[in-house]
């Protein structure tokens, strides 16, 4: 089953083409990483998938639902994690989760049970009554994930999810995403400019100047590069002629 289908997707900001005929698909249950430098079109693609931006042409389907034609239906199947945590610092962890549940039409006992599970899963139960503004960046990220996963979306899209996290928090986050895929069968699509983040994915798409220049399992991508012991960074350089840091 295909969770995400992107077909000949184009987007223009005035004269500048940010996405140039992008096509790929992600199978249900996969962890897919879109790797590319800042300005490569990752965030534009992320915004189009999450229904916040209209494409110039082409289509994006989430479990067969066109995000431009039926955005409300698509949103029910999507969990969206933004670069900056979309949580309210003035509300407590519990209030943020409840607020999110209401937005998805959850209430009563199902919402209560969902919140309890989410708090436990992310180790947030002792902090449930704390205002989010008093939490560290790593904890806020966990609140964000707990919140987004509350309605149990089958497709989770994340834009640079470990942005602003220290190495330990980043490692924990990636482990949690891997667990989500394996235990809950959640499809995950994340954008990143970090090699170590892309390396945990089942498949990686390399996005360069609005075009997908390579796609495949990290092992396959590395194997296709003629070098001694290539890394994903070498794969990126091989396909784009430039390093990720440039």
């Amino acid at each position: 089953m295909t969770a995400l289908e992107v077909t000949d997707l184009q987007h223009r900001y005035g004269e500048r083409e940010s996405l140039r005929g992008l096509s790929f698909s992600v199978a249900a249950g996969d962890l897919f990483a879109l790797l590319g430098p800042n300005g490569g079109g990752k965030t534009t693609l992320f915004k189009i998938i999450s229904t916040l931006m209209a494409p110039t042409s082409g289509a994006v389907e989430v479990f067969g639902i066109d995000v431009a034609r039926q955005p409300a239906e698509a949103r029910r199947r999507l969990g969206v994690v933004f670069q900056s945590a979309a949580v309210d610092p003035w509300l407590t962890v519990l209030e943020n989760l409840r607020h999110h549940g209401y937005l998805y039409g959850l209430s009563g006992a199902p919402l209560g049970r969902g919140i309890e599970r989410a708090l436990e899963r992310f180790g947030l139960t002792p902090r449930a009554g704390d205002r989010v503004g008093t939490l560290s960046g790593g904890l806020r990220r966990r609140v964000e994930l707990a919140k987004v996963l509350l309605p149990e979306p089958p497709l989770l899209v994340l834009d640079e999810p470990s942005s602003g996290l220290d190495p330990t928090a980043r490692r924990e986050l990636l482990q949690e995403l891997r667990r989500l895929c394996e235990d809950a069968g959640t499809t995950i699509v994340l954008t990143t400019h970090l090699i170590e983040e892309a390396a945990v994915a089942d498949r990686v798409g390399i996005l360069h100047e609005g075009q997908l220049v390579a796609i495949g399992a990290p092992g396959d991508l590395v194997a296709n590069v003629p070098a001694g012991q290539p890394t994903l960074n070498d794969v990126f350089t091989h396909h784009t002629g430039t390093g990720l840091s440039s």
Partner: protein
Amino acid sequence: MILATYSLWLRDVLRFLRQPSRVIGALLTPVIFWFVIGSGLGSSFQTATGETGFLRYYFPGSLALIVLFTALFSTISIIEDRQEGFLQGVLASPAPRAAIVLGKALGGTTLAVINGLVFMLLLPFSGLSPGVGEVGAAMACVALLGLALSGLGIMIAWPMRSAQGFHGIMNAVLVPMWLLSGALFPASGASGWVQTLMRLNPLTPAVDILRALLTGAPAGNVATAAGTLAVFALITLSISTLLVSRPSQ
């Protein structure tokens, strides 16, 4: 729809109550606006209004000003929410766009009603003695005005990317709107073109209703004025919903 609206409304109220500076500002503003401005300008305007107590005349106008300030400025949080990323989370949810607008507008309305109620505590010192029914009806008018102005605020805040820009536009809208509403001076003594602007001003019917209810001053058709206000609310909320429904390009 109802849950999403309730949730966004509740969030606005909780945020207000948890920020002491906003609560203090809400409590002090009415007193300062009415008493200081009213007392200071009272003698200057006495002849123009033809009333013996300017503080009495000015009371409904102050109430309208408080609602205007509170409702319009409550929508600045849209810009903050966009900058902090919270708004994107709401927009990516399946919550109906009308619920997002209504929740936000009801949040602004509630804050305006709270400020209005605080101001009403000054009634015994104003020389006015409306009945309980009149006060209740005045608060209903405050709520309707708050809803309309919150809708207007959302219309203005939605396309804005900076709080500074919002303040600039707000000042350009807010001050003329209030001055030309009959809050400070009656339309009767004004020049022809000012009278025309005052008739077109959607705040004018609200001030007329409040003045009729609180001071017992003769007013035109209160039902028509309330209808005009309701139409104004419907227009601002509808336009806001259209704006919020459009994905960015």
